[in-house]
């Protein structure tokens, strides 16, 4: 018998979107999902890991810097290396960068203040495990809430990212154009979300869990989790078919 894909939601002591992510996965979507404490070193039994938003260990040095040294992130590194799905949202994205699981850095927003507001994004890649339920080039709405979300990388890294198609979400206006006003934090190349080369690790600043229910003003984030679920199921089905 095939079991449902299981999601781990990592809890750092300063995570504050951990409960929100669990709510969406478990209560809204009905997926098996559990918290995993930051001291945990074992992620076996899980098929996907969510690194939620918040301020992992206070983030007084650089966001995500201390978290990148934690036991659970060591486990996440192994998990990702073995092909597991990992999504880092907001602070989770910062952690992935600090941990070297994704290239580049997130620095203070242009304007130097925290910004919490809705943004519009263009889905650049609809062929990843995280975005298969979006249409390529689709413009979606998702909220951001961060002080350090300006994506920065050296020119050669940026070029490589673009060439390999690792940019998954970009800040755009309603019409899908990359205008300066549509870029809420000054991210280079308007980058809002990014995958690793293998495509199984995604980091994004916007919060899909905040837009997974109509009553909260939009549901465009929901398909991200649904895409992951579907991808994991399909993979499991294939594997089951092969072994039969």
């Amino acid at each position: 018998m095939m079991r449902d894909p299981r999601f781990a939601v990592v809890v750092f002591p300063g995570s504050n979107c951990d409960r929100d992510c669990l709510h969406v996965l478990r209560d809204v979507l009905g997926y098996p999902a559990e918290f995993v404490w930051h001291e945990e070193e074992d992620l076996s039994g899980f098929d996907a890991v969510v690194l939620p938003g918040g301020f992992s260990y206070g983030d007084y040095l650089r966001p995500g810097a201390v978290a990148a040294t934690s036991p659970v992130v060591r486990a996440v590194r192994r998990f990702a290396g073995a092909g597991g799905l990992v999504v880092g949202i907001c602070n989770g994205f910062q952690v992935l960068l600090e941990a070297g699981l994704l290239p580049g850095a997130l620095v203070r927003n242009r304007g130097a203040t925290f910004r919490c507001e809705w943004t519009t994004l263009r889905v650049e890649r609809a062929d990843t495990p995280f975005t298969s339920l979006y249409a390529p080039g689709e413009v979606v709405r998702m909220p951001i809430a961060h002080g350090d979300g300006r994506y920065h990388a050296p020119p050669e890294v940026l070029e490589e990212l673009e060439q390999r198609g690792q940019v998954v979400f970009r800040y755009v206006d309603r019409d899908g154009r990359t205008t300066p006003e549509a870029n809420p934090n000054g991210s280079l190349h308007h980058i809002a979300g990014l995958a690793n080369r293998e495509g199984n690790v995604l980091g994004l600043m916007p919060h899909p869990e905040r837009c997974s229910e109509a009553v909260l003003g939009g549901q465009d984030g929901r398909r991200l989790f649904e895409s992951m679920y579907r991808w994991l199921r399909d993979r499991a089905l294939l594997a089951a078919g092969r072994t039969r």
Partner: protein
Amino acid sequence: MTAVTQIPEWEAAGLRREEYERVCALLGRRPNPTELRMFGVMWSEHCAYKHSRPYLKRLPTAGPGVLRGPGENAGVVEVAPGLAAALKVESHNHPSAVDPFHGAATGVGGILRDVLSMGARPVALLDSLRFGPPEDPQSRRLREGVVAGISHYGNSVGVPVVGGEVLYEDCYRANPLVNVACVGLLPSSRVFGSAAAGPGNSVVYAGARTGRDGIGGAAFASEQLEETSAESDRGAVQIGDPFAGKLLIEATLEALQTGAVVALQDMGAAGITCAAAEMSARGRTGMVLYLDRVPRRERGMTPAEVLLSESQERMLLVVQRGREEEVLRAYRRWGLHAEVVGQVTAEPVLRAYDGDALVVELPPSALTDAPTYRVPEQEPQARRALRDADLSGLPKPDPAQALLSLLRSPSVVSKRPIYTQYDHMVQLRTVVPPGADAAVLRLLEAPPRGIALSVDGNGRISYLDPWAGGAAAVCEATLNVACVGARPVAVTDGLNLGNPERPEVAWELAGVVDGIADACRALGVPVVGGNVSLYNESEHGAVYPTPVVACLGVMEDVTRALSTGFGAAGDVVALVGSDRVSLGGSEYLRTLHGKVAGAPVRPDLGLHRRLLDVLVRAAEEGLVRSAHDLSEGGLAVALAEACVAGGIGARCTLSPELFGIQTDLSLFGEGPSRVLVSVPPERYEAFAALCARAGVPLRLLGYVGGDQLHLRLPDAEVAVPVVELRSAWEAYR
């Protein structure tokens, strides 16, 4: 050479001579220096409400859903079967004046812990702010620091800031006001308290370590003035650690789950002293504390320093004997310090040991029962003259230009640049975000139910007529909540005034409290807690008496929340509620004529109650599409805001029969209990019938549509494109 005069010890501790004598009489001996310092802080205005307590007795505090009224760390009211909300407001004015960033941040931390002390998980914050005009760079700097501080703490702990207000007046230049309200949720059956019960139970210290923070900020520091002058400066600023604050929330909620916690309180002003004294006084017990078990951050702290430190992010708990380990484990799991530091005793005496030495031995009630004072109240002559000022014959500016100036005025402009600095979405409850009349949060525990929150106050009105200002704050907060469709169920108030020893301030205090009390009584909305901040004065004088009221409302179905902006072309635009307006204390008078004068309208509380009812019913029955209360700037500004929020124009006529011919008054006059609504034409009849049954006046103004706000007045016509209104209203400075 003049002789060096010795400061008497009681004065150094911050007490008056009579107070010192009273302490000696209560104890039957002289207090030792440590004890004296404890009295100095506990009997300060901040801790003891010496000048305000007699007035606060006038507030109505009971109501059907009230589970805890004032007297605990926060009020608690039922919001759904089995689910309760704790709410409280707190000021951090002086700390914010000294260090806007840390002052405001620690204000947030403090109010979160008050709500946590009831056993509630904090789910929302609101900030009510007052500064000098933004043209003044110092004032702007204060504002930026305060907003950054609130943002720093609130965002990090993951409690959304869902609303607030910012107003500007010269009187707040040197003395900004920073009031923060917090709401938390908890099961009705599991409301915690702070009464230390059960002799033999353990006293547990939990949270961050103790340093010399906050010591010397108060007058008692002068005891050792020579060695510690640098230290005493330092004591004026406390630094918050939101990460530790977050850990404290999670660990405390986890500790409460064990069932081993008997009582708890945060260590705020006067630190361990206040927590230990209040908890034992409430429990009619005593406590013994072993100070060397208190986790410390600094070496060489004296017993008095440990007892009086105001280090942030600390709680004191009473835990069942034998179950300490369960509680300590919860805190340690979250990386916090937790130690058993003493026991509850049957004998009502607070004893503190430093090693083997007994350094404090006091009845807790002596510390908590400070004397109260009544200062003769006296309205200043000049104030009456100001209120009676003749406002006829003012020059009449062009109405369109006046409207644009008002939209640009700092108190009216969009506060978006402020509230986007706050995470207002975390916890996934925010259904109506900041920007509307009130925020709406869904109750995930009781869908589709929700709560609505707003905080309001108008210092100008309170200055001219304290009673009207107190009542108006209640009216505005309740009306904002009703404008989104929620029924107001409780308020918490913050009173910010000058030096209460002056008869003029005593008069203001009496007036604002009476105004709040009368309004709450008439509306049937209890006051479940509050905060008083006095001595808000600088060399430039006192601030306007500034009562702020945070209101909590309940709505059956969050999907029925009304919007602020006009929704659809063809909808009927109408004004519902009172017809009484005045230019007294108005934004128009201030912005266009540079005056703070005249008599504000005193609310008709009966009408206000009926109006609240009409709005809630209309929302529940889906009769109106939008509602927006009239506040600063009156009808014209409310119309403009509804156009901008909806991105659509409107065409209205202010007929002379209904609005008179004095157009500045009808456009910009202010008065309580007035709401602008838009109603789908096919529902208008039903809505009108509802208003008529309730005896609430309804005035048809015109229709939604077009891309400009078009107003036909008896003597003029005004037409301003919505884009122009928007760019004025977004001119944040």
